[in-house]
């Protein structure tokens, strides 16, 4: 039997749970825990420069590795600074455990120094939360936290730890709980076979089918199974932004991603489909556009591990509650040895899809004329080329995010890492940091804009401390591009506060942290600069690429329209 203080129990538990990294920031209420971390070396703590960055770094780690991320902060402002990161992880169903120091139990409710009811503050944005009431609870509560975060539909879990729970003077028996059970929580492990059979019958009879898959396939580790199923049937597939890479984008059956800025052919195919097989996607408003006009001729099969996602915005004809992986495997075994019933209709369907593809071929954007500023799209294409489409790409939020999703081609899941649901500016750089530490031999690039980057640029200091060699490509259009685009389209180009009048000299800024920055303005400098940046995997390099501020992201769905109602350029509309 081993007697440990609450703080030592936490450190020991994290080791026993296999946690490799904690992203955090110390402060009064967390100091006992920090002292316990100091006295061990199994778990590595990464000191960030802002608690929000800790959550994004843990989030990036979780997205790339599939394992829960861990965050440790102090009470009050330390805890409230994690709110945006927790909400980001919640919206994208990312497993994360956030350990918050709290003022001592006898002070709770007295407006003590650095006291915040963080469980109350985060209640709507967590999968669950706990407050430690007695040090002996620590191992079980932490086990529950990790179990809840990673199982079922994953999500963030907050554990609030009053300072007296970690007091070094009080020691209790510690046993690592191998398993925990919660009587009210039993995530489904497989779908209903009858429903799956029904879905497969519809799939085989379909004349104009489309697979529409989302983040659930990525987090459910079901990409291989999905690829197998889709290729057996030979049907077209489009993914959500969160589902990018679950099916190889360079394959002929891939229509790219769908929705507000999705590909023309994906949106057209969805609108004209007679069967939509949605797996691990949630029909959110950036995908469906106006739900009353959504896919008027399609029957809908909807597979999701979360029953509340099904028929939330669009009614499913065949709802299937279950994890993507097991449902897809069952579908494969039912499809095995059978052929689609309408091969001629499917041939015609592919002809129509290829027709849509041809319509837009070579017209996606206007390349820069000589002497004109670079187009952001061509910068992304160049990054894809230099990294052979194999990098981990994180983004912030705005035009650069959409361009990155459109012009970088991903053949693997967990490689495109973006804040899809919450749309958090500032996410990309700390997320890249979290990934690079765990994949030191891979290229990790944060594609960002000068607006987003400035929200979390203090993490340059963290990268310096730990030698994190991420690449940062700043698509510098000297404006908040997506805001500006909406102002161009909806507010007669009145650019209210979308112009950054006093941008820093990024070169000097980056150099101040001891890193290399390269400024790129001309097309001929782009590839050499990228090659230089990616030459050394261990070196952080910042590329400040000046791009055309007038560029818009297209296609763009027309508000209140159907999937097929899109602006295709500044002058074309479907």
């Amino acid at each position: 039997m081993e007697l440990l203080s609450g703080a030592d129990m936490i450190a020991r538990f994290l080791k026993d749970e296999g946690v490799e990294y904690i992203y955090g920031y110390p402060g009064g209420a967390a100091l006992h825990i920090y002292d316990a971390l100091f006295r061990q070396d199994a778990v590595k703590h990464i000191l960030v420069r802002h608690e929000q960055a800790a959550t994004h770094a843990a989030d990036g780690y979780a997205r790339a590795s599939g394992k829960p991320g861990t965050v440790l902060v102090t009470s009050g402002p330390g805890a409230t600074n994690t709110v945006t990161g927790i909400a980001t992880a919640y919206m994208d169903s990312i497993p994360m455990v956030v350990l918050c120091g709290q003022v001592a139990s006898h002070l709770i409710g007295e407006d003590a120094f650095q006291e915040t009811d963080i469980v109350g503050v985060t209640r709507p944005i967590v999968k669950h939360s706990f407050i430690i009431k007695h040090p002996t609870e620590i191992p079980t509560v932490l086990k529950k936290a990790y179990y809840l975060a990673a199982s079922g539909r994953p999500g963030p879990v907050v554990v609030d730890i009053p300072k007296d729970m970690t007091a070094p003077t009080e020691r209790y028996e510690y046993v690592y709980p191998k398993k925990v059970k919660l009587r009210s929580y039993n995530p489904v492990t497989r779908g209903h076979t009858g429903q799956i059979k029904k879905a497969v019958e519809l799939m085989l009879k379909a004349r104009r089918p489309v697979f529409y898959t989302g983040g659930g396939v990525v987090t459910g580790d079901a990409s291989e199974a999905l690829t197998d199923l889709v290729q057996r049937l030979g049907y077209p597939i489009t993914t959500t932004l969160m589902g990018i890479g679950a099916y190889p984008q360079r394959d002929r059956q891939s229509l790219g991603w769908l929705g507000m800025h999705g590909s023309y052919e994906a949106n057209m195919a969805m609108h004209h489909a007679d069967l939509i097989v949605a797996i691990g996607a949630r029909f959110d408003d950036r995908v469906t556009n106006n739900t009353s006009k959504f896919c008027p001729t399609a029957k809908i099969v909807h597979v999701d591990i979360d029953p509340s996602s099904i028929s939330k915005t669009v009614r499913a004809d065949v709802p299937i509650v279950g994890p993507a992986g097991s449902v897809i495997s069952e579908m494969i075994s039912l499809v095995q040895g059978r052929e689609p019933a309408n091969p001629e209709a499917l041939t015609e369907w592919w002809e129509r899809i290829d027709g849509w593809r041809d319509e837009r071929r070579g017209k996606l954007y206007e390349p820069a004329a000589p002497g004109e500023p670079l187009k952001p799209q061509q910068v992304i294409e160049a990054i894809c080329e230099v990294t052979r489409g194999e990098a981990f790409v994180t983004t912030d939020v705005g035009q650069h995010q959409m361009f990155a999703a459109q012009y970088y081609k991903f053949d693997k899941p967990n490689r495109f890492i973006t804040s899809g649901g919450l749309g958090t500016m500032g996410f990309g750089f700390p997320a890249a940091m979290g990934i690079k530490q765990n994949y030191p031999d891979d290229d990790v690039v944060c594609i960002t804009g000068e607006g987003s980057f400035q929200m979390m640029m203090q993490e340059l200091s963290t990268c310096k401390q730990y030698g994190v060699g991420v690449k940062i490509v700043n698509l510098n259009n000297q404006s908040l591009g997506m805001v500006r685009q909406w102002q161009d389209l909806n507010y007669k180009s009145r650019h209210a506060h979308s112009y950054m009048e006093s941008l820093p000299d990024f070169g000097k800024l980056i150099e101040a942290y001891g890193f290399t920055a390269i400024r790129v303005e001309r097309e001929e400098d782009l590839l050499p600069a990228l090659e230089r940046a990616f030459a050394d995997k261990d070196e952080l390099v910042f590329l400040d690429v000046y791009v055309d501020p007038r560029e818009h992201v297209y296609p763009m769905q027309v508000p209140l329209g159907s999937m097929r109602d899109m602006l295709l350029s500044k002058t074309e509309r479907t």
Partner: protein
Amino acid sequence: MRHIISILMENEPGALSRVVGLFSQRNFNIESLNVAPTDDATLSRLTVTTVGDDRVIEQITKHLNKLIDVVKLVDLTEGNHVERELMLVKVKALGAQRDEVKRTVDIFRAQIVDVTPSVYTVQITGDAAKLDAFLQAMSPIGVLEVARTGVSGISRGDKVLSL
């Protein structure tokens, strides 16, 4: 349509706030809410009446079920059920009104549980409609204060909501 949803939840601090928070967070209605411990000390029973079409009610029950503290729930309005609410009302009772109040109390099978020279405190149980009717009957005389518990309910027959 009005629904009565009965929920067994962990008797843990914060559980109630998760349920109530869910309703405001997702823009669902709460008409009444009633919560108390059960015969099992680890469980509380919460009964909420809400209004919504089938799609909304389906979302409400799905989201409630998702809460980790919710162990089990039932939509009582899906089947035969007994629904009761208790109300305490202070009504003006002066002169001739005293008899009038007493008569109405008898008609509604309510009870007078406290008396002063000018006020009767009446206790009445029944479904929400009966309580409303009683308040309406009393309104010409003068209703001074109302305390309602909110609806509690249980299904008829052999079916039970338990673990």
